[in-house]
């Protein structure tokens, strides 16, 4: 048996309405052929993929019953490495492949329409309560113009029928040679991205601190899909305020990002995400104090170290940190210069573990044009 992947993802049974439970369903330790996790400075736990060789019966179970099972990946020191929910399964049965995903699913659908010569409005949403009881509520919105309210309602109902359940995507090939084995790839998403599942709106023009609004969004979301912790112990107040107004048919994720992208009263960026125990974490970005180095690299070593030269396992590396390479001597970067020759701000970390070993990629901050930045504010 080649190198053993030391992570133990524990998959928990999905509860009613997609609400995560603490009932363990499976431990993947010792069974995986490959593991990859990504974490981002604006979002938190992003994606996780686990590949395992299975029996046909187990692969079928993952396809039929796996979606919305939650997962917590633990490291060998009992630390939480990643946490999320299963949104996609791909099973390979030799030359047959089946994929199922919640990406296109919508079980509460409205139609945004305008009548001939009328103003835009949205039809009452129609729901598939069986799908909602299984996965939680996920909004879908279609658009049409120049139709009646009755037609809009019909369109919404038709779209619901088409999208209320996850669609299976088959791939079948017949070829000579080795038929292949049975394997499963589980694609997990961080809980943060499920904030895009629900649409909201608000006509309030009250000015409120942006982080306070962010916390309130989570509370409101939880009233529909109780996915998140509403604890605010890791939310550092931004100190700036904005209107509570939310345009119709805006997702919770869009509004949250619009608020937190504004930064804080020190004119610094914020880093945020959904992390352990599905808690929202908001803090000033580490790039505001680039002399505070969280991670160090030495070119002759294949390891990452913390500021006190303690080795950091690849699966424990987190974004929103300054990483410095000791051997690359900077002339002396400006105090507020996050990125320099020897150091950079880590926006995203990608940890990959397979039978050949462990890899860690620390990705720098994206180069944002002013337009792209402003587009997120609107």
């Amino acid at each position: 048996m080649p190198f053993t992947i030391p992570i133990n993802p524990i998959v928990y049974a999905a509860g009613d309405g997609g609400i995560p439970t603490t009932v363990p369903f499976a431990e993947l330790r010792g069974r995986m052929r490959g593991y990859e996790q990504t974490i981002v400075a604006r979002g938190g736990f992003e994606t996780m993929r686990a590949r395992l060789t299975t029996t046909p019966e187990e692969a079928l179970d993952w396809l039929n019953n796996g979606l919305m099972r939650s997962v917590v990946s633990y490291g060998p020191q009992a630390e939480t490495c990643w946490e999320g929910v299963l949104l996609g399964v791909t099973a390979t049965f030799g030359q047959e492949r089946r994929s199922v995903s919640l990406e296109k699913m919508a079980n509460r659908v409205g139609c945004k329409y305008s009548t001939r010569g009328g103003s835009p409005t949205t039809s009452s949403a129609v729901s598939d309560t069986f799908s909602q009881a299984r996965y939680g509520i996920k909004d879908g919105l279609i658009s049409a113009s120049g139709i009646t309210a009755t037609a809009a309602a019909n369109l919404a109902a038709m779209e619901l029928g088409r999208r209320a359940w996850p669609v299976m995507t088959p791939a079948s090939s017949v070829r000579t040679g080795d038929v292949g084995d049975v394997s499963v790839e589980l694609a997990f998403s961080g809980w943060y991205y499920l904030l895009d599942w629900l649409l909201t709106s608000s006509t309030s023009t009250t000015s409120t601190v942006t982080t306070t609004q962010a916390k309130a969004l989570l509370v409101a979301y939880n009233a529909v899909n109780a996915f998140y912790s509403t604890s605010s112990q890791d939310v550092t107040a931004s100190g700036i305020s904005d209107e509570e107004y939310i345009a119709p048919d805006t997702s919770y994720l869009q509004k949250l990002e619009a608020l937190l992208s504004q930064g804080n009263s020190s004119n610094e960026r914020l880093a945020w995400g959904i992390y352990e125990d599905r808690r929202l974490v908001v803090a000033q970005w580490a790039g505001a104090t680039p002399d505070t180095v969280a991670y160090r690299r030495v070119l002759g070593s294949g390891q990452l170290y913390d500021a006190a030269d303690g080795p950091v396992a690849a699966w424990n590396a987190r974004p929103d940190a300054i990483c410095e390479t000791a051997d690359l001597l900077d002339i002396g970067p400006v105090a507020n210069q996050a990125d320099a020759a020897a150091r950079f701000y880590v926006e995203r970390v990608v940890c990959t573990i397979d039978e050949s070993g462990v890899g860690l990629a620390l990705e720098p901050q994206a180069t944002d044009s002013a337009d792209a930045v402003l587009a997120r504010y609107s």
Partner: protein
Amino acid sequence: MASDYRIIVGGTTLYLSNSTGAPVAGGAATAAATTPWMVRLTDWTPTSAPPRTIWSGGPPFRNGADPLYQAYETVTETIPLVLSGGTHDTLAARLQQLKQLANVALFGVPALLQVQPSGATSPVYFEIYSASAQERNAPNAKGVGEGAIVINVDLTITRSPHGGSASLATLINGATFTNRVTGANPNTQSLGALTGDLVYEGQPLNIQITPAGIGTRILYAASVASVASVNLTAATGTTTSTGGIALGASAATISSVRAARGLKLRILVRVDTLTNPTKMQLRARLIATGAGATDVLIDLPWSRALGSNTTAQIVDLGGWAPDFVRLPIIPSAQISVEIWMRSIDGTSVTATASTFDALLYYDFGVTSSFDVSSAGSLYLLGAQNLSGAYLPLNPPRAVFMDATPAPTQRVTFRGTIPRAWSGSSLYLAWYVASTGLATATDTSSVTVTHAPLYRSLRGNN
């Protein structure tokens, strides 16, 4: 005593070596004195599993590389055999019997290969995962295709990388562990002398823990090189600050880590006289020692909010690999541990941090909640004997079983179930799951058994 090699499946044993020193033509393979099989021992010895090492660093930036992780491949080897059939039909029947028994792993439990050279006191057992047998012409004999009655057989097996023993070694037998580091029957007790080839790499343990009392528990378990109970002086504090306050600091000696690369430091703090503990978080700050030292090495992450109990709790503050003390000039390594407290929402919180346990550990983990109200024990299982010998259980498991024993509660284990390391001890600490109460006088009865592993030969070890 002749060498003794066998294939064992449940109640059936196939003898590959005749105890008289020569195979009996057409004899029954299920008895040592009548078996028609013989191992051509001058041509074979068990293969040691090659290690698969993951290396860190290397040229062109430095000379050499450091080992980071290591595990072992399964072993595929060919055992050369002689089969004396008496008649060709009997020969074919004996050959079929071998092929059948060696390939039961897929739908049953793996067959065992027993290896005991002449003069060895104890056998070693390897699990066989798959096998194939190819007959060949024996020297100076009729060809196989011509109806030979004596043939050579190449038995190619893929087996476990390490062999085990038919029984577990008892390291700790019904000992009382009290939920504190110091005093009589402490929560850290030596595993004693170990046998086996992997004593410096970790060998499986089966740990049975029977807590006294009723209610739910969460258990910390670790295999440690040492544990220190460190007193904190003037360690009472109150805060409404979300930034936190320092309760107190004391130095912990961590000199073992200078030589032992794999050891890590873990801090578990014991706090009592708490107010509003569910609004409180704790953290450890590690500070360099030395005259006038104030350099903060690292802040470990804030703990979860504490449980509701206001009398006494034990809180895991996390682990750290103190590589910085692996320097040649430091005669004894110490690190100062400062315990911090904060309120998560501005509610006033108070605590006294009386001591902390500083573990230098190899393996550490924590269970999910389990209920001890009904009679039974928590088992942390690292070894299994499904095929009849004790070999690693992959992956290791935790389970609560009744007195039978039969499983009654599923328990998950985060981290690494403790293994046996040369010179190590077992550390246990526990608290009530629903409230966080950790009573220092609570006891558990603990039995620890050990499955030594062998690469090839064992002798009497």
